[in-house]
């Protein structure tokens, strides 16, 4: 356990707490339950007369639903009820609507079409899992197979099939304005003209399944107080509670969620699909209902870490300095948004990686394809592009004939440098990490690289914003209501009718100083009048907002 070495001198701006726990062996508070087999995972709650739910799924990547016939399935032995989209009170949702981000785009159970192979169209509720499996095969769907698209760049070409009607260009729309996330810092084109080398690369990763040992699932049962209890393996208990309350159009006070014991998640247990279906089953049958994926479903329809494709272009000087870096990125969101739009915000905030580069530009697209929707997985939004960046760093080092570790040390952030997203770099320590790596790998560094330090040579000119940053309006989207990008129905193309909902609170920007004022002054405290909705909050998704 003594393998961790703390070099706090490089983190002098951080909290100076003494670390009492990290690096020392300690007992988990839940370990006794784990070693005695008594930790209460969601499926360890037994119910008399438990009903089992399994879904009938699309065999096609993309197909319109002409008709769903569940009559034979309903007559199948042991079947209590068959749910379709018509049974879902509010059958259109996007996960991040709870954060007021994005348009509702995904049904719980598809009604008009399926946009990925494995999308659920009906949920059979039966007295045993075997009976549910048998009945699922008897759900008849009259399909009208549509052309599909499985590649991010093909999906955004003119004439490509529309994957998700809410976003007709197959691209998520950010802030109601742009079909991609932009980062602009300095002028990459001018720098490319001055660079000694131009280094280009294309990087592609595959989707990655979280593959938790415990598959996703939930059990819901009516309580005797007009509430429903829901035992769930969710990683995001309140997120799942909010989502269930929304799609079931019921106050969350009628839902009693029990969770927190999760058999591995790694991001794959935030999508809140099982809870609303299990609760809906309990509502419509009056019986406890379990909805769980088997391993095949976990692998096939469980949302993975999405695939990413990156194009990188660097302008590099002979001495190894990177003077410009340009990114074009495509996140494969699959058929619906889930969390990919947010992954990109994280990713763009991370660019151009931990290196001080005076000219940076990025266009990053959240693209819809007829693949399984993607979602969270450990460091999603960062991991994929870091793979691209670090592979590209090796390529850059090769172009100038430098040792790749020295190339990184030369370009690494120093304390006091300005990052491309206009925050000062602090507590960097990348130089020191590189030096330790070199030592452990037996790589002899040049005197200059060995003497470098993250605390030396930063700031000054490197800490200033560029004198000029080139901006553009590429990808500007017209026709989407910009008054509130998250307002439901705000997209001009939204054609799916949504059931009426209680009036949502209207959010207002913070009061801004009058234009004639010479210098900005702090906003006055809001008057305690009817317009006040709550405390001002900052979110990386939407900036300053009033709750």
């Amino acid at each position, binding site marked *: 356990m003594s393998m961790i070495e703390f070099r706090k001198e490089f983190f002098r701006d951080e909290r100076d707490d003494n670390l009492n726990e990290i690096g020392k062996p300690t007992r988990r508070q839940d370990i006794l*339950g784990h070693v005695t087999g008594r930790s209460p995972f969601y499926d360890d709650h037994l119910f008399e007369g438990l009903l089992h739910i399994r879904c009938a799924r699309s065999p096609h990547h993309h197909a319109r639903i002409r008709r769903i016939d569940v009559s034979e399935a309903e007559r199948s032995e042991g079947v209590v009820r068959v749910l379709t989209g018509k049974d879902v009170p509010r059958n259109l949702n996007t996960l991040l609507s709870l954060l007021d981000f994005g348009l509702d785009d995904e049904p719980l159970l598809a009604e008009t079409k399926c946009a990925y192979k494995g999308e659920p169209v009906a949920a059979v509720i039966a007295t045993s899992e*075997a009976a549910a499996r048998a009945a699922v095969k008897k759900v008849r769907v009259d399909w009208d197979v549509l052309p599909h698209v499985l590649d991010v760049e093909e999906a955004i070409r003119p004439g490509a099939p529309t994957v998700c009607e809410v976003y007709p260009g197959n691209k998520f729309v950010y802030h109601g304005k742009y079909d991609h996330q932009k980062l602009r810092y300095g002028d990459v084109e001018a720098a490319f003209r001055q660079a000694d080398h131009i280094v280009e690369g294309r990087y592609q990763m595959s989707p990655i399944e979280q593959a*938790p*040992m*415990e598959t996703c699932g939930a059990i819901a049962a009516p309580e005797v107080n007009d509430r429903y209890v829901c035992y769930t393996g969710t990683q995001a208990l309140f997120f799942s509670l909010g989502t269930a309350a929304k799609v079931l159009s019921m106050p969350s006070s009628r839902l009693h969620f029990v969770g927190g014991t999760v*058999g*591995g998640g790694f991001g794959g247990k935030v999508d809140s699909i099982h809870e609303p279906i299990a609760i809906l089953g309990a509502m419509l049958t009056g019986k406890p209902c379990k909805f769980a994926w088997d391993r095949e479903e976990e692998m096939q329809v469980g949302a993975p870490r999405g695939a990413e494709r990156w194009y990188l272009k660097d302008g590099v000087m002979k001495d190894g300095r990177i003077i410009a870096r340009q990114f074009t990125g495509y996140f494969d969101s699959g058929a619906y948004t889930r969390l990919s739009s947010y992954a990109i915000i994280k990713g763009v905030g991370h660019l151009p990686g931990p290196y001080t580069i005076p000219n940076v530009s990025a266009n990053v697209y959240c693209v819809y394809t007829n693949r399984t929707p993607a979602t969270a997985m450990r460091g999603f939004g960062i991991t994929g592009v870091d793979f691209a960046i670090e592979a590209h760093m090796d390529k850059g080092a090769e172009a100038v004939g430098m040792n790749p570790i020295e190339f990184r040390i030369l370009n690494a952030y120093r304390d006091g440098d300005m990052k491309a997203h206009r925050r000062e770099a602090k507590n960097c320590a990348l130089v020191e990490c590189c030096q330790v790596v070199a030592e452990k790998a037996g790589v002899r560094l040049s005197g200059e690289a060995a003497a470098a330090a993250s605390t030396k040579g930063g700031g000054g000119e490197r800490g200033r914003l560029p004198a000029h940053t080139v901006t553009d309006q590429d990808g500007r989207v017209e026709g989407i209501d910009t008054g509130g990008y998250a307002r439901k129905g705000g997209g001009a193309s939204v054609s799916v009718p949504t059931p009426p909902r209680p009036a949502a609170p209207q959010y207002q920007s913070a009061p801004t100083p009058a234009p004639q004022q010479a210098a900005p002054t702090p906003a006055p405290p809001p008057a305690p009048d009817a317009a006040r909705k709550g405390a001002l909050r900052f979110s990386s998704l939407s900036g300053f907002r009033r709750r």
Partner: protein
Amino acid sequence: MAKKPVTFTLNGRESAAFAEEGQNLLDFLRRSVGDLSPKYGCGQGGCGGCTVLIDGEPHLSCLTLAEAAAGRKVETASGLATGPVLHRLQEAFMERFAAQCGFCTPGMLVSAKALLDRNPRPTREEVIEALSGNLCRCTGYEPIIEAVLDAAGERARA
């Protein structure tokens, strides 16, 4: 559906319950008997989360018919402790931080117990071999191996 009574020994105690036709031992133990320590991870014999011992040998209960337990000695992780006294494997797992989410832990423990019962002083390679059918997705294999070796060491001294 015809139900059959199955009488067997569960963690040293006589036990009996009705098994449904075709019911696997995992479902039988969890739903009919009420021992929730074996876990469903894949239902295909691929992950080892459902491992139980039958007459001392590790078996994947998801691929074993409930009736196969009739008249046999079945051991699960819930029977490892003797009253409030934990098995030394359990102590070692706690000490070595050999569990994160805990879902694979019951299967790991019984596979390790089968190993130590037949080979009280296993080598590291023998521990790895004995646990090779048990997957851990939190990837805590190293502390798990260390915990089993620790438990074996204690046993030798005791």
